[in-house]
């Protein structure tokens, strides 16, 4: 018997609450100001991971997991081969898992968490261990322990020690050190900043029902324009980072090659990506 889930969910609608007026909001704000004034302010504690090295227990807060994930993404998107893996990201063949993981990392740093998750799931399904680990950290940062543990079990790293548990602790510790080092590191390289600012605008949603986050022709041009800039004497133009507003649509002229639109993602590829999205439910 098919279940009409929309009918079932229509039953949970609560009776409306009594209206909340502007006067009530203003009164509440006064109460809050009085509460803050009435007590001595909290002294800064070591529980803020940005302020001091947290203790091992504090490493495991959802917020610190999110920070670890950011550090990890920054680390693998700035590696030399990251850009070449993005170039492999073509529309007429199944995307390479490494490129998918790097794209996920860029999207995550650009606060497109759901699109990042989609590409990490794809890469993890193709046995990219780092993508599985990113999903582990992402779910931990959301307090979703069961889902997180599932991905951790599927992240098969070459063991650093004889025990899986000890290996996991080692990875934890390494990330903790990496995250702490962020405070003393200068900003991300310009190229990485440029990618984070521009890539989200070049990733659009295909399929009204499932909303697959697929890169379009701007993405290809974007990557080629960066590669072009790094090739001596190529003479390609590139929009400088300082001229872009965050997530602005990039107006870099096409470097070379034919324009590919979202509609040109091959149907078998779209179907496979759709299956991927529907199969993974966490």
């Amino acid at each position, binding site marked *: *018997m*098919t*279940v009409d*889930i*929309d009918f*079932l*969910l*229509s*039953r*949970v*609608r*609560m*009776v409306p*609450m*009594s209206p*909340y007026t*502007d006067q009530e*909001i203003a009164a*509440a*704000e*006064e*109460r*809050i*100001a*009085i*509460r*803050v*004034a*009435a*007590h*001595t*302010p*909290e002294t800064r504690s070591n529980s*803020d991971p*940005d302020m001091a090295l947290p203790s091992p227990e504090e490493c495991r807060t*959802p917020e610190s997991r*999110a920070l670890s994930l*950011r550090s990890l993404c920054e680390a693998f998107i700035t590696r030399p081969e990251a850009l070449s893996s993005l170039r492999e990201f073509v529309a007429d063949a199944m995307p390479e898992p490494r490129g998918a993981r790097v794209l996920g990392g860029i999207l995550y740093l650009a*606060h*497109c*968490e*759901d*699109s990042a998750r989609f590409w990490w799931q794809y890469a993890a399904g193709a046995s990219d261990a780092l993508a599985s680990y990113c999903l582990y950290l992402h779910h931990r940062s*959301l*307090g*979703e322990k*069961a*889902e997180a543990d599932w991905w951790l079990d599927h992240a098969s790293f070459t063991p650093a020690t004889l025990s899986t548990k000890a290996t996991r602790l080692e990875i934890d510790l390494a990330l903790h050190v990496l995250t702490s080092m962020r405070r003393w590191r200068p900003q991300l390289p310009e190229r990485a900043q440029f990618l984070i600012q521009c890539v989200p605008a070049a990733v659009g*949603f295909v399929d009204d029902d*499932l*909303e697959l*986050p697929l890169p379009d022709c701007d993405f290809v041009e974007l990557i080629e324009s960066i590669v072009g800039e790094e090739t001596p004497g190529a003479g390609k133009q590139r929009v400088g980072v300082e001229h872009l507003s965050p997530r602005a649509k990039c107006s870099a002229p096409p470097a070379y090659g034919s324009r590919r639109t979202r509609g040109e993602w091959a149907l078998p590829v779209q179907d496979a990506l759709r299956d991927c999205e*529907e199969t993974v*439910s*966490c």
Partner: protein
Amino acid sequence: MTQEEPSLRQSGHPPAPERPPLDFSAFHQMHRPKYIRWAERVLGCRAYAEDAVDEAFERLLRRWDEVLKKENPAAYAWATMKNCVCSHARSRRRRADLTEGAAFDTIAVREAGDSIGELEQTMSVFAAISELPERQRDVIALRYCFDFSTAETAQELGITEAGVRSHERHAKKSLRGKFEVQSRKEGQEQR
């Protein structure tokens, strides 16, 4: 933050409160009604909800500069509010989330002719919702219990609208699966 004198002990007059920054006021005005809605349902009455939400905004105001620097202030504020509501619920010996008890406050149960039957079905839906992962639970609660739009839900949770739709899709798939198993079992029992 400046050190405040504990003047309640010394002179008996509370210190004049500082006016919160304008962006805090705007944030408070935008989110408070929806936080109250959530808190009221979990804690059972408006007064308890006001108390818990006051505490949440007090915590945010104390560290407002840091909150603004967070990757996602809206998501941080939502988590802070839920934590406060949770601890208030525990201290009042209530379950810390929307549970089957919320079924009594649904339109369906209040307006039903067969209110017992309706109640039973609605409670089972709430029970199934409470088993979802937290993010999916929040999305379903805001979208269906409180009838928030996708945009409003995204704003409260600090996620994108596409994210809301994705969580909703996965939640519905999971719920559908649970109810299909249940109805198959009931079908077998009846034979």
